[in-house]
């Protein structure tokens, strides 16, 4: 059986050409086995990453990927999202844009049959994968300053109407979070897209036992989401929330398990790029939660096997670091590992999508409680609490902070983070525009690794 190659191959990071060669070993039955929206006829997505490079994701030819079948499946699925969303619309599913809250509203949307939530802001990776500034330039033409979060690509995507279908509903969460995205959503609204605005609460500093009213605020917002969805679908069955929460929890626990296995293994079993993609999958399962769950299960098995065998993708002496604020440019994650570092902790501003949702309380209250753990609604100190703990117990030897020029929370938090983590070296870098990674930046990362070594 040809596909046994995947079982015997030594774990490693491989490039596009290698993947194209190995893909020949994938059996036809295997390709048909994986499909989105449970449709084997047109829902097939397993393909070599080169396919997506040909369709415009030019950076793929410079990236290195994990060589497992599970990772191949993951990339095929992730890059297929745009097609999937358009297909969903074609087949009569409701496509719902959830913006700004990063992780909670989709759990409500998924309680409704045939409703697909997605995060338009996840388009922020697109300019980097495509090595194109088209979306960013368009955003500038539409009024967004050059120095702003790369999520400004979202506005351009709404304007161009080509990256995802017109959503049936838009939920826009704003409040005690970053300014950039709130302003972007306002401009999307101004393009003529109607949206239901939702309030994100503020978690006051040192307020571990926040007042009950904070939960009540959120619950009333979730009721508004529910009512709007009922209006759209003419379905009003709150029992649907229970399986939806259970699924979200299954995904969250799997992602956490993969992260822990990867962080704690003597040899890193899965690269940082794949790990980041898994972490962000918690937000909405890349618009097909069932299939994504299956993929993550498969990755979990792969990682567990590798750990059991004591094999992995990086050298054993790779130095453990933490990463704060996600990078819009995936290549940076490759670069860091190429310099002999490994990621053993992250704070990617999506803590609310990682924590378990309580299953023994009323669903909206459970969702509210999980959201109250969100990264950006509290203080910087709370945000990096886990990283500080990792530094204290010497699990983390250094910290990399990625910033975006002009981004409201980066500008205010980074120096503070450096101070709070002063016991270990901290490298703070600005993510350059697409195709903008220079030798100077590579040298800075290499020097950081050298300092740690």
């Amino acid at each position, binding site marked *: 059986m040809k596909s046994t190659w995947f079982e015997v191959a030594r774990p490693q990071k491989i490039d596009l050409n290698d993947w194209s060669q190995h893909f020949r070993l994938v059996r036809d039955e295997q390709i048909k086995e994986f499909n989105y929206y449970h449709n084997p006829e047109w829902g097939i997505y397993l393909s070599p990453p080169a396919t997506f490079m040909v369709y415009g994701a030019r950076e793929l030819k410079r990236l290195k990927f994990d060589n497992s079948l599970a990772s191949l499946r993951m990339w095929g699925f992730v890059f297929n999202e745009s097609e999937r969303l358009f297909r969903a619309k074609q087949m009569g599913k409701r496509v719902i844009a959830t913006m700004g809250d990063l992780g909670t509203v989709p759990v409500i949307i998924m309680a409704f049959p045939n409703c697909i939530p997605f995060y338009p802001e996840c388009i922020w990776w697109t300019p980097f994968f495509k090595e194109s500034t088209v979306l960013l330039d368009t955003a500038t033409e*539409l*009024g*967004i*300053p050059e*120095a*702003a979060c790369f999520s400004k690509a979202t506005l351009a995507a709404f304007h161009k109407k080509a990256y995802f279908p017109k959503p049936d509903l838009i939920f*826009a969460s*704003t*409040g*005690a*979070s*970053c*300014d*950039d995205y*709130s*302003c*972007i*959503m*306002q*401009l999307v*609204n*101004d393009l003529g897209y109607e949206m239901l*605005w*939702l*309030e994100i*609460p*503020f978690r*006051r*500093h040192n307020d571990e036992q926040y007042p009950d*009213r904070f939960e009540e*605020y959120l619950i009333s917002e979730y009721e508004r989401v529910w009512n709007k969805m009922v209006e759209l679908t003419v379905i009003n069955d709150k029992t649907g929330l229970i399986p939806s929460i259970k699924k979200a929890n299954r995904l969250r626990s799997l992602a956490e398990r993969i992260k822990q296995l990867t962080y704690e293994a003597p040899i890193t079993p899965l690269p940082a790029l794949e790990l980041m993609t898994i972490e962000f999958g918690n937000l909405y399962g890349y618009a097909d939660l069932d299939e994504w769950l299956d993929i993550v299960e498969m990755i979990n098995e792969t990682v567990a096997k590798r750990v059991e065998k004591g094999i992995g993708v990086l050298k054993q002496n790779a130095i453990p670091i933490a990463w704060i604020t996600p990078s819009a440019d995936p290549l940076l994650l490759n670069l860091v590992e190429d310099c002999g570092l490994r990621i053993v902790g992250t704070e990617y501003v999506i803590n609310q999508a990682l924590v378990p949702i309580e299953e023994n309380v009323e669903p909206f209250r459970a969702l509210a409680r999980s959201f109250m753990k969100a990264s950006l609604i509290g*203080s*910087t*100190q709370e945000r990096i609490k886990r990283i500080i703990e990792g530094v204290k117990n010497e699990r983390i030897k250094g910290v990399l902070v990625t*910033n975006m*020029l*002009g981004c*409201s*929370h*980066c*500008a*205010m*938090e*980074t*120096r*503070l983070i450096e*101070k*709070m983590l002063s016991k270990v070296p901290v490298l703070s870098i600005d993510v350059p525009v697409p195709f903008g990674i220079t030798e100077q930046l590579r040298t800075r990362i290499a020097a950081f690794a050298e300092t740690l070594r």
Partner: protein
Amino acid sequence: MELIGYTCSYTPVELLAATGFKPYRLLHGNVGFITLGEKSVRVDACPLVKSNLGYIMANQKKFAAVVGSTGCDMARRMFDVLKELTNIPVYLFNNPRTDKPTIFYDEIDWLAGELECLSNKKINSEILGTEIDRWENARNRYRRLDQKRASNPSLISTADFHRAVMNYHKGEIGSAININENQSDKPRIYLLGSSIPYEANQILELLELDLAIVGDFNCGISRFLNINIKEKSLNGIKVAYYNQPPCIFKRPNQPFYEFIGTQIKELECKGIIAWTLDYCDSYEFELKRIGRIFELPVLRIRSDLSFQNLSQLKTRIGAFAEMLA
């Protein structure tokens, strides 16, 4: 310690004053303070926030506490820095972006409780009533001035008005207000945008060499005049502060545009000056809309508060005035 600093137009000064400390609006725009602030935040932070931070760090002993809201993200996160680097008590209340009065009212109740603990003083309705009278009287005095500024022709300059309102913002509401009338027949314009710091008076002077600023929507100039407390109680304070003309960061921000549109019409303005500080998302993202919605010529002035480009600016302002005349 005599001051209680605050950073946002939604902060009720009457409540702060009830503690016995003097409310002091943090509106600094000085390069020296900016440099000091840049030791604790990145260079791409808002210059007003950096400067305020620098000012507080340099004058820590003056402050009994600092109060702010979640309004602007950078101003909000300044409180994390203060918490970490100083011993000044800080209080940050949630100013909801969407129309959620309950949240605001609950937060003001919370703030009142915290301020009682800070000052070791019961903030009862009698104290609040006195403070409401004092501050409302002060606002009335400034309203009379504002009417002269808004009259056609304008009788006082905004630069003079700004110098006068600094006393209000610094808590010196008993000070005498002396402004000489100086009629202006220059093109009438409306000023909006980021805060006008104390040290930015020179920008107003520069603008008024060729123009007459007859109305504004900027923290630091006349926004406080929109506060009109009708009921002498904490509830009256909540209602007045919550229902002021909305800040541009409120979502959706259509009511902001409606308010400004009405102002511009009433004041018979021929153009708009959009003043933005570097990295002020709330206004910089909206500049195109401002031009489109009001259908008036807009002069955009972006500043890092270093005031190094005054000559170039003078030429731009002159050209703008020529276009309006």
